[in-house]
């Protein structure tokens, strides 16, 4: 456990990192970003909380099974979304320019506001983001959990 100052600041920064990571995930088709990057940012937030509180306290709040379950759910959503368009081809973008959810066409120019576009890409971004955050966070927690510390 680190000092009081670091712990209080980590409490304040953890929601900020999470919301920024989800911002990067959701805006993957308009600005630089996407599923991989946002998932990595959120996993780094988990690493921040782990280092601030120590593994002994954190293992009651963040469970490894939840993270591995998130990884499986993300992978499953990704594959299912790819399968729906199987009538034309695997990974067919059936929602683009169709008028349904995420189905509007996009104009040129800088536009961080037209979130309702690009078909299946935002859904896949969200799925891959959840998968990457689960995988990298589970790696950090596994490496903290096992193996006794070796003194010099």
């Amino acid at each position: 456990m680190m000092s009081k100052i670091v712990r209080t600041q980590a409490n304040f920064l953890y929601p900020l990192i999470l919301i920024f990571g989800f911002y990067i995930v959701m805006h993957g088709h308009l600005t630089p970003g996407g599923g991989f990057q946002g998932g990595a940012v959120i996993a780094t937030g988990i690493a921040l909380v782990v280092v601030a509180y120590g593994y002994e306290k954190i293992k009651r709040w963040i469970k490894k099974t939840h993270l591995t379950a998130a990884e499986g759910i993300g992978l499953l959503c990704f594959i299912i979304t790819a399968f729906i368009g199987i009538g034309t081809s695997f990974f067919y973008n059936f929602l683009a320019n169709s008028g349904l959810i995420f189905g509007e066409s996009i104009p040129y120019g800088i536009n961080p506001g037209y979130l309702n576009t690009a078909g299946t890409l935002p859904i896949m971004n969200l799925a891959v983001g959840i998968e990457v955050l689960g995988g990298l966070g589970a790696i950090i927690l596994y490496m903290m959990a096992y193996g006794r510390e070796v003194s010099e």
Partner: protein
Amino acid sequence: MIEDIIHVLILAGLIVTAYLAVKLRDLLAAAVVLGVFSFLLSLEFYILQAPDVAIAEAGIGAGLTTAIFVIAVKKTARWEVEE
């Protein structure tokens, strides 16, 4: 012109940090130097007009890689011994 000078300086920094990461006997210091290498690489991606790759390198190289190396060094030995 000035852009080319910036380019050359960043590449020189990359070579220096790569040499240092191989040379140092202290594995923790090697992890720190690897972090600096990752920062410079991200700046190079930024200048080569690849912002997606720069964000990925920033998010992974800034926090996660150094964290994993530090945990692994903690659970093994810190000094690289060679007779």
